[in-house]
């Protein structure tokens, strides 16, 4: 019974943990602007995250070591350093976006400008890393994040043309009046929102914090294979709900508030309050996770002790890196940059950086000296390689598209 409870908890936290400000913003924008014509990108990104999340979890559970050790061993000090620096910068950017997201959610709840919330949120993020046990953070916020299911409910209350939605997914057409580069830019943003690097590091390091071993492979698989796809479904619901409400009125999503309009239209005040709770939980959890991820990967690259299983005085350098990340992220948000823009840029750059992490995972999952009978099978390898080719292509296309479309304008 306890095992089953753990399993459910794990799956649900994976759902809640998957959705963050990146998913909220990109799903909302694309649904309002492109209908369901980019749903394929969301599905592709989710499939890739599920595939590589499972692989990373398996490597972690079998070798009992987190992914960034593997990154340094297999890529060598220099390439791993490039990955480390890129991931650290991305973590700061992502953290800033998430802090902005929490601020926007609180602003929507209180009508107090988000910027005033930013320092308070920054402090709270650090406090949670400093004092609150890992399992509590993961579970409480993962579960609260499920409040976003309200978008699924809203979808059923709205006059959804299911048939049109489905055909939009199956036959994607670039809407008239939209340029192809812009369409592709947003496709990458959706893939990137599903494949944020910190999620891989956090999933794997979190497995070590929860003392995964070979016996936990089932639990880990359930988390990855059920949790991530359901999280993707949630993003899809946010996108789909925007289609009947925002697209006909040609409302563009420039603020988090507009993402929530479909829920208000469908469910009124109650739906709104539940949704705000979901916004808050999803973005706050992601803020904590992205800041901790900086501590994790730095410590794992340099061989420091890390994690929340040990007291801060036993892993002081880990905590200092987390603290610096939080300070930088908070300071960046305080410059009054637009959180929605920061989110878009961070998910797109994330998509560009992810191959450096996925590549060693794919290689190590094939090392039978390490993995024994848990090494990748043929099907996983075929899918893994195909997806790897896709993300390399994405990574090459990202920067040109970012500049051509001026971040999707």
């Amino acid at each position: 019974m306890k095992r089953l409870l753990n399993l459910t908890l794990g799956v649900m936290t994976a759902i809640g943990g998957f959705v963050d400000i990146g998913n909220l913003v990109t799903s909302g924008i694309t649904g309002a602007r492109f209908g369901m014509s980019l749903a394929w990108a969301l599905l592709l990104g989710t499939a890739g995250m599920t595939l590589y999340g499972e692989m990373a979890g398996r490597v972690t559970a079998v070798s009992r070591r987190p992914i960034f050790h593997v990154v340094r061993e297999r890529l060598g000090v220099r390439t791993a350093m490039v990955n480390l620096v890129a991931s650290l910068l991305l973590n700061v950017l992502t953290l800033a976006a998430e802090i902005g997201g929490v601020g926007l959610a609180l602003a929507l709840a209180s009508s107090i400008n988000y910027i005033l919330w930013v320092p308070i949120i920054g402090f709270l993020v650090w406090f949670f890393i400093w004092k609150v046990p890992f399992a509590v953070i993961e579970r409480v916020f993962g579960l609260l994040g499920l409040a976003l299911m309200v978008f699924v409910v809203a979808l059923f209350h709205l006059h959804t043309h299911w048939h049109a939605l489905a055909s939009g997914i199956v036959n994607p057409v670039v809407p008239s009046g939209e340029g192809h580069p812009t369409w592709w830019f947003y496709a990458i943003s959706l893939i990137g929102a599903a494949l944020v690097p910190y999620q891989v590091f956090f999933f794997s390091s979190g497995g070590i914090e929860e003392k995964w071993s070979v016996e936990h492979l089932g639990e880990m698989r359930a988390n990855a294979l059920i949790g991530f796809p359901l999280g993707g479904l949630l993003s899809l619901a946010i996108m789909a709900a925007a289609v009947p409400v925002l697209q006909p009125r040609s409302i563009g999503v420039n603020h988090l508030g507009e993402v929530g309009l479909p829920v208000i239209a469908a469910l009124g005040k109650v739906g709104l309050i539940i949704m705000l709770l979901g916004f808050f939980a999803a973005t706050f959890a992601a803020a904590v996770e992205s800041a901790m991820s900086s501590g994790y990967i730095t410590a794992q690259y340099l061989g420091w002790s890390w994690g929340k299983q040990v007291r801060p005085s036993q892993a002081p350098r880990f905590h200092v890196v987390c603290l610096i990340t939080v300070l930088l992220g908070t300071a960046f948000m305080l410059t009054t940059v637009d959180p929605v823009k920061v989110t878009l840029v961070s998910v797109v750059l994330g998509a560009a950086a992810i191959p450096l992490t996925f590549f060693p995972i794919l290689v190590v999952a094939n090392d039978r000296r390490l993995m024994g009978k848990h090494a990748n099978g043929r099907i996983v390898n075929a899918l893994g390689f195909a997806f790897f080719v896709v993300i390399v292509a994405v990574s090459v296309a990202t920067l040109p598209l970012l500049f051509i479309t001026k971040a999707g304008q």
Partner: protein
Amino acid sequence: MRLVEVIGCAVVDAGGQSLGEVHDVRLVADGPRDANGRSRYRLDALVVGAGGMAHKLGYSHDAVSGPWPLASIFRRTIRRSLVVPWSEVEAFDRPTIRIGVRKADLTSLADADDRRDDT
């Protein structure tokens, strides 16, 4: 002598032909005993030439056999890595190492006889 001083050196054979850079070393535990009575590791050979990345990733070993087609590509680059016994080193003057044999007399990393004894 630190390993970092050896790695990256250009190796030139007896005929003056460049063989590429050192990217790894082979260690054999047959040196003098340490305080615990175990044989110390001796730097037995240099691994030189292309395929440093593939070697590091683990593709020089049979146990890493996927995914297609990465495995076969990496295998091929590893065939171009040569093993140079340390005893053949004539002059070590960073960043160049001169050896006393010719390229044709060296074995490829892929053919080194210790590749399959530790699965």
